[in-house]
């Protein structure tokens, strides 16, 4: 077998004495056929792989619609106790799509976060911020208690003990002027100062650098403009 590396061959097919070579041709026909055949294979594989992949990851990019659900009249809610309301966050799958919101009226004595059109009522999600188990409001202790790993939240939903990394998520609330009913909107997450953030998964701290370590998802409803 001759040593291929002994002399550098010319790039031009004409110089290499190939049959049918013409002036200035550098790509041999064999190389062209190789590229064309392999390229066709790649195109064919991509033609079914890319649509299938896009199909599988598309839900990540589908932005949630803002929707409002009525939970009661303003008279139903006091500022000293929570009312448990079952709301639907995923329609069409029965009980698996339901969740619980603990709703009360805003109490300016204890609710120090700035008031705006979306928090005349305080609606807390029952999703524990440790790993997502459902928390339960214990009236005698005025605490939210998680059955899984002992997370405890105070009356405002701030972490009072255990492993949770941030206060309980909340829902936007508003008074529907047409029907006179209190309505719950999308869920949002809060940091320890109760500032609003796009919803994050449980277990993701969003204080300080946390909001960048756990970026907002493409598919979740973002907080409304100020």
């Amino acid at each position, binding site marked *: 077998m001759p040593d291929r590396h002994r002399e550098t061959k010319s790039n031009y097919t004409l110089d290499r004495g190939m049959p049918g070579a013409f002036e200035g041709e550098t790509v041999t026909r064999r190389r062209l056929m190789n590229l064309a055949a392999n390229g066709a294979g790649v195109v064919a594989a991509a033609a079914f792989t890319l649509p299938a992949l896009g199909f599988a990851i598309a*839900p990540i990019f589908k932005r949630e619609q803002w929707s409002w659900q009525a939970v009661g009249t303003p008279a139903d809610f006091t500022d000293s106790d929570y009312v448990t309301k079952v709301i639907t966050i*995923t329609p069409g*799958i029965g009980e*698996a799509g339901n969740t619980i919101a603990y709703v009360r009226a805003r109490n300016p004595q204890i609710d120090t976060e700035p008031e705006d059109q979306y928090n005349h009522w305080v609606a807390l999600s029952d999703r524990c911020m440790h*790993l*997502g188990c459902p928390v339960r409001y214990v009236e005698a202790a005025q605490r939210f208690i998680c059955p899984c790993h002992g997370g405890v939240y105070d009356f405002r939903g701030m972490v009072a003990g255990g492993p949770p990394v941030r206060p309980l998520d909340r829902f936007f609330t508003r008074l529907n002027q047409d029907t006179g009913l209190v309505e719950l909107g999308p869920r949002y997450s809060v940091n320890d100062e109760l500032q609003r953030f796009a919803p*994050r998964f449980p*277990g993701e701290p969003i204080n300080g650098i946390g909001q960048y370590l*756990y970026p907002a998802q493409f598919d979740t409803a973002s907080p409304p403009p100020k």
Partner: protein
Amino acid sequence: MPKIPAPPLPKTLQPKPKKPGESNGQGPTHPAPLEAGISVVDWLDERTSLSGGLRWLLWRKVPRGINWAYTLGSATLFAFLNQAVTGVFLAMYYRPDASGGAYESVRNINDNVFLGQLVHAMHKWGASVMIILIFLHMGRVFFYGAYKYPRELTWVIGVVLLILTLAMGFTGYLLPFDQRSYWASVVGININAGGPFIGPFLSNFLLGGADFGATTLSRFYAIHMLLIPGAMAALIGAHLYLVTKLGISAPPWLKSHPEHDGDHEIDMAEV
């Protein structure tokens, strides 16, 4: 390296002795037709040459001193086959419907289908058995030093198989769709989300959205019964190929024989 003597041919493949009355080497008066395809095995072998591969796979030399711990890999393989067979038949009755149909279909398998409770239990308990066996197999390979040169790639493929087996356990746990499986999956997905940067997107992909939705269950079902088993079957093939090609490592306490002067080949035994 001295050549290992060829293993004996299986009985059916050995050349047959001549029958009395057949030509005794004097030379036939007319050329006998080439005898071929007289049995199904011969017919297949002539067209596929499979017998060589089968002999290569099954009639192997193994080192002296091997013990029952060396069967843990095969045991894990059979646990996988049990999961595959029972899983295929469970899929005939299972319905990945999050609005109650999934739970109903599993209840139907347990209560109404002939042997349904048995097959379901074989799949459920077989999953635990497979996890236990795969860890025991890994421990055997680790403590015997069997992952060392030239078997590193076998080890790496084995670790990928371990991860895929755990992923099978995770995705399969949701499918009965009772309270336990629902909340266990919610917690598991939220643990996924705890990884910085990609964790939230991975959880989003698993859920097929921001929250547990209509397609989450069918996503888990498709991953559980198509995606991962296909990958596992291919990797098990590669794992077995490497095991056969490289041979089984001797137990670490086995010394090379002193009478083989300077020859460190480990004594091979027939099985």
